[in-house]
């Protein structure tokens, strides 16, 4: 698989690759050229490309062009093309292949640097946070939370607890830039009496290596984390409110044939379960102002992974939290929802204009709901949707579920309100 030249993209035979990688009847040969994929893809028109064109160019042997087009960095591999297609053709598989063929120094720097950072230390953090830093951030955070109230005076955030039921990962953004945002989730665990742990090795959630198209790096990333879970003997790997971290792990386990003696679970599913079981008695009584919320379906969690079941759990949690009348769904929604453009490394790729163009559809979706807040269990969605709001001058904010859960339970700390607007910032204090 080696490059002749380090500065030129390796040229792939896309037509042959499609035959090899896609299932029969759902490969490029089956394409009817109907354009449903293009009409439904937010990356259509960027770099003059769209999914239908990508297929056509592959069939026309335009391998040079496909091996060098920057469009592959605007396609977030959200798989909406496959979802919509009457033949279920997944155009994004070859986008991933194309990414891997680019020489490292030509790939978007931000994505490559993040992956390199992740491979550097056993913590696997993209923001260069080493285990000691992480442990320290957690310890400080715990101290801060314990001081909030008697209720949490003995709160723990275990690290490396052997045999804990849940292995919880942590997106680097919180410990690196906003450690107080870790508190809400700890309090939720405490509230429901969950037996959980972090791990010092392989603690981070994000996985930029998949976005670089470097299978080897992706594999190493996932192996580190799987080893960590296996090592601690946890039953459930509980994925934090982050989309791609869920997908990259279970997909990686499958793709690379790794041995993983645990279930992959999403925090969202567990919120839903705990609410249904009465262990998390949230309700919408706090929402006296009738503030309106909508929900963003992270592609990596919904369409690409657990499907509408996850979307349903997400909505159940959201509706319970904000009140039926205050929840306005986007259209389209659930597995049919549009990618926001935050994933696939788009946020780190430095292609701002393209990313905003991509995200305009998402912005319009939100604008149509007239929601004041967008709830999303995904860090990339969170960042992108916020950024879109700023760029297109929207009137909404973006919050994680844990923030609202704690708000509803009356346990949200004063400094855990960074993403709440003035309408909610003082609520319950």
């Amino acid at each position: 698989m080696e490059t002749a030249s380090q500065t030129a993209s390796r040229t792939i035979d896309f037509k042959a690759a499609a035959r090899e990688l896609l299932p029969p009847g759902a490969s490029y040969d089956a394409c009817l050229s109907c354009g449903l994929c293009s009409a439904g893809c937010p990356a259509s028109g960027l770099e003059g490309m769209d999914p239908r064109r990508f297929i056509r160019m592959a069939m026309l042997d335009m391998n040079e062009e496909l091996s060098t087009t920057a469009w592959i960095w605007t396609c977030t591999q959200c798989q909406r093309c496959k979802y919509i297609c009457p033949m279920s053709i997944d155009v994004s598989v070859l986008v991933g292949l194309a990414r891997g063929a680019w020489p490292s120094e030509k790939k978007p720097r931000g994505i490559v640097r993040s992956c390199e950072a992740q491979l550097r230390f056993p913590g696997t953090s993209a923001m260069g946070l080493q285990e000691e830093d992480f442990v320290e951030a957690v310890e400080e955070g715990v101290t801060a939370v314990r001081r909030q109230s008697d209720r949490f005076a003995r709160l723990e955030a275990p690290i490396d607890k052997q045999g804990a039921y849940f292995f919880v990962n942590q997106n680097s953004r919180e410990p690196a830039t906003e450690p107080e945002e870790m508190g809400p989730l700890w309090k939720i665990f405490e509230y429901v009496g969950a037996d959980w742990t972090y791990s010092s090795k392989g603690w981070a959630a994000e996985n930029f290596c998949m976005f670089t198209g470097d299978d080897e790096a992706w594999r190493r990333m996932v192996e580190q984390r799987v080893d960590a879970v296996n090592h601690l003997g946890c039953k459930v790997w509980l994925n934090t409110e982050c989309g791609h971290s869920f997908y990259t792990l279970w997909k990686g386990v499958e793709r690379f044939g790794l041995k993983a003696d645990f279930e992959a679970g999403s925090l969202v599913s567990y919120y839903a379960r705990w609410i249904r079981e009465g262990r998390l008695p949230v309700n919408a009584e706090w929402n006296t102002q009738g503030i309106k919320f909508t929900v963003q379906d992270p592609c990596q969690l919904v369409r690409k992974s657990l499907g509408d079941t996850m979307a349903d759990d997400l909505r159940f949690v959201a509706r319970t939290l904000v009140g039926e009348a205050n929840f306005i769904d986007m259209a389209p929604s659930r597995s049919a929802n549009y990618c926001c453009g935050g994933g696939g490394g788009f946020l780190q790729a430095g292609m701002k204009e393209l990313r905003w163009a991509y995200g305009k559809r998402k912005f319009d979706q939100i604008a149509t709901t007239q929601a004041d807040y967008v709830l999303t269990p995904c860090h990339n969605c969170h960042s992108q949707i916020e950024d879109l709001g700023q760029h297109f001058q929207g009137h909404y904010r973006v919050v994680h579920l844990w923030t609202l859960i704690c708000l509803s339970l009356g346990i949200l700390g004063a400094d855990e309100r960074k993403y709440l607007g003035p309408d909610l910032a003082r609520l319950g204090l």
Partner: protein
Amino acid sequence: MIKQPRHHRAELLVIGSGLAGMAASLFALDRGVEVALVGNTGAIAFTTGYLDLLGYDGKGLVHDPWQALARLREDEPRHPLGNVAEDDIRDAFTRFTRALTEMGLGYAAPGPRNVLALTPAGTLKPTLSLPLTMQPALAAMARGLDTLVVDFIGLNGFSARELVANLAPRWPGLRTQRIGFPDMDSGAEVYAEVLARALEVPATRQRLAERIRPLLGSAKALGLPAILGVHRPDHVHRELQSLLGVPVFEIPTMPPAVPGVRLRELFETRLPQRGVALEPQHKVKRLELLPQGITARLEDPYGEVTIEAAAAVLATGRFTSGGLSADSDRIRETLANLAVVQPEGRAAWHRADYFDPRGHGINRAGVTVDERWRPLDAAGKPAHPRLFAAGSLLAHQDWIRQRCGAGLAIATAYKAVDAALARG
């Protein structure tokens, strides 16, 4: 990794999420039945949005489909529509259009006669029920109203000039104008679906109206390609009419088009709300016909999903939708190994002339059913006591040439569900 396989149980499994599958699900819900629906968008994606009952028969253009159906019973006794009583067809069609309307996609109630509705080429198509967003065209045309047809820079394949050049003989008051859509007028390609989504935003409607208003002149009506929203087309339609002060009508476009997206998204959203267990955009990989019932297995990205049901309605469509497939010589039904009535050998599948008025032999191939709508196996027996079939998968009809697709889907789904839920 320990993955949790998913299981559903349902009283009725509907296989196929086209018109027949959607109709079957609705009819079953009306009867309070637990329904599971599985399917992947097929031909429904390419619909104009019109709901046809019967547009052409052996004599030509059909003006009164009810009368023509009576003739059909005589002339084509094996035609599936001929095997549904007129009252049932009326009931099914009415319920279906009412259900769509209640769910937010307004449709005209089926009337006593076909109407001639617009195509993007400016030809006319006989149909029974139109979306409300397309209806105003009928009155405008009947009255020969001074009408402006607007098309858009970059909307490939939709030409108002084409429409008017072909309609002008019967509608002299038509005029055209091309404009740019707000924020999408650079000349680059635009898609109807993207314009439609944008029109869901009130501010975009305002801006579009601002561009159109000065062009209206003496026009008493406005025609647009079908871009009036995806999620709430009736609302978008009303709002735009109110902004412009004239009746507005949509005209279907070539694929990739909006009406099919509206239907798919409507059902994907509403059916689960009404309790249908929906596996959207997945096809059944394996169907097991067992003594105790019918089991469908499919795979989503996360693993295997199994659905067990007491009965099932197979509404998997034809070649585009994957219900039928063919090698170089033989046509097969793809899931349950059902017998497929077909012309012998590929040479008999198509006639020499594309537009031969007799239609092509392959179009009438398909699955046959007994009087209880149960598809037959190779031995001529029902493949399973509780397996039923509906829609374009059925033999002895040519939905494309006869313009009977919607009627076929809705009426046979109605009967199939009836049969599926019948006791004894």
